[in-house]
């Protein structure tokens, strides 16, 4: 089991200690320079633009420095604040639901039922598809005369007459459910691999000692899954934090601005309204938020552990 994505538990005999050689850097350099050219260079421009007044609809070139005005506009813009809250709600809710459902399904699959392998292969199919396509599928299923309202009406759950995605108070839940459907199998399959890697003897010993299913789960399975769980929760939280495709396919941020997330809001300000200065400021606020979140996750995952 690895310690950090990609780093893994490093066995000494697979590493060469070359403190004074330039070879390791020479090998990393091509990808580093290439990515710097695609990412760091544009981001540098974006930082510069964030202190400029520049709307492409008004002028083809920046109209001059405005200090922190773009940043102040963002913080006092209700749409921006709203999109930040939406993003946090969506990331927290969708990640938590996926984790709980995924863990339950992983426990079910760990029972070694007949057909378990087929079930596992079928189960991962939603995760394989493009999020945009998942968005198309659910947009269709959410229509007032679609399959999901039909099933909900069978169990007497009322749905808004303008459809789940047409109502400002339910649309974000529609987005959440689509992401949960697509990615719960991801949690299930990976947590299952985590459960299977726990030595059978430990679980059997607990059961011989008379531990109930719940006690085994709470005292043995869950602590052993801690590391795997933190890694995939981090991956998914970040991916949902950046969610764009499903929103574009289902609601375009609407109705009104009720399903705008940070990503969608940034896209809208920059590439629909062409306000380059303002959108660059939003981009940099997003980067700062991301750096904080990634560091919190890393602190939680790796505190006390040697990388």
């Amino acid at each position: 089991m690895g310690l950090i994505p990609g780093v893994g538990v490093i066995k000494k005999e697979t590493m060469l200690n070359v403190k004074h050689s330039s070879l390791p850097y020479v090998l990393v350099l091509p990808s580093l320079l290439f990515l710097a050219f695609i990412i760091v260079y544009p981001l540098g421009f974006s930082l510069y633009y964030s202190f400029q007044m520049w709307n492409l609809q008004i002028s083809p070139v920046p109209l001059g420095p405005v200090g922190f005005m773009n940043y102040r506009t963002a913080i006092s813009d209700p749409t921006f604040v709203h999109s930040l809250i939406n993003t946090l709600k969506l990331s927290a809710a969708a990640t938590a639901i996926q984790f709980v459902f995924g863990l339950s399904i992983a426990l079910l699959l760990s029972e070694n039922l007949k057909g378990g392998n087929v079930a596992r292969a079928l189960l991962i199919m939603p995760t394989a598809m493009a999020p945009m396509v998942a968005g198309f599928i659910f947009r269709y299923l959410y229509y007032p005369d679609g399959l999901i309202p039909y099933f909900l009406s069978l169990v007497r759950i009322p749905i808004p007459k303008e459809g789940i995605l047409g109502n400002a108070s339910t649309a974000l839940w529609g987005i959440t459910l689509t992401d949960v459907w697509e990615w719960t199998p991801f949690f299930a399959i990976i947590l299952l691999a985590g459960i299977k890697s726990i030595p059978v003897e430990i679980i059997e010993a607990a059961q011989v000692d008379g531990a109930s299913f719940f006690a085994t789960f709470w005292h043995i399975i869950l602590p052993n899954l801690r590391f795997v769980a933190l890694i995939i929760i981090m991956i998914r939280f970040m991916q949902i934090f950046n969610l764009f495709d499903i929103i574009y396919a289902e609601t375009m941020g609407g109705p009104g601005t009720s399903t705008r997330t940070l990503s969608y809001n940034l896209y809208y300000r920059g590439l629909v309204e062409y306000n380059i200065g303002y959108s660059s400021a939003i981009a940099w606020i997003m980067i700062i938020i991301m750096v904080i979140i990634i560091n919190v996750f890393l602190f939680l995952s790796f505190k006390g552990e040697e990388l």
Partner: protein
Amino acid sequence: MARRSLPTRILLYALLVIVICIFMIPIVWTALLSVRPTITNRTLPPTLIFKPTLRHFYYCFANPGLSSHWLIASLVIASAATGLSLPFSLLAAYSFSRFKFSGRKFLMFWYLSLFLGPPIVFLIPYVLMMSRIGLVGKYPSIVIVYQTFTIPFSILVIKSFFDEIPVALEEAAMVDGASRIGAILRVVIPLSLPGIIVASMFAFVFSWNNSIFPLVLSSRSTKPLPVGTLNFFATTGITWNYIAATSLVTMLPPMLIFLVLGRYIVRGLTFGAIK
């Protein structure tokens, strides 16, 4: 796990069937929609029995065949993005796997955060940069920006496969007179070929599934499938049968690749962290 009593086992099987249904019904429903006569689209309760038609596939992929153009663009973009990332990632993966050097942890973390960071953040300045050199709407602008996820991903996954090859094998080859490059080409690459293939398959799937970059960067002739499908929303009266037919073709290749990948899925989706 322990033996369960018969009623418990029946309950567990029932749960398994329910779970499979929840995750498969939307996909099956889309497949049905793609062969449904349009008149049965919106009936309540839903129509389950109808005479299937291939008319929608014919419209999408033969005449006028818009979706077949998008299919070609998808294939070109995903293959080129995967191919371009390989030489870069092989070099860096080898370095991270074999050498302990200062800055190693920081660099690996930098690649990881690229993969987890929000693509939209650098998309806008990237578009401005590409439009300045006249590449917006052309394949290179899309293939190049895909490297922001294909390279970091492939580095981390290929590295996890390199880690499994004992360094002694390489050293043995070098003692026998091979150069380091020779040892890499004759020992490391062949032994980690499965890993390189796994990483490439994932890179292909991620490239195939991406839609945020081509949404902004592609033109009429370079639109991949998910972005092209949006065209069917623009026409009067959303043509759901065409959307379903095109969506089905969009989701099949990644699904087939996931079936082939089998037990490697866990490793790929966690960037080599969990084996």
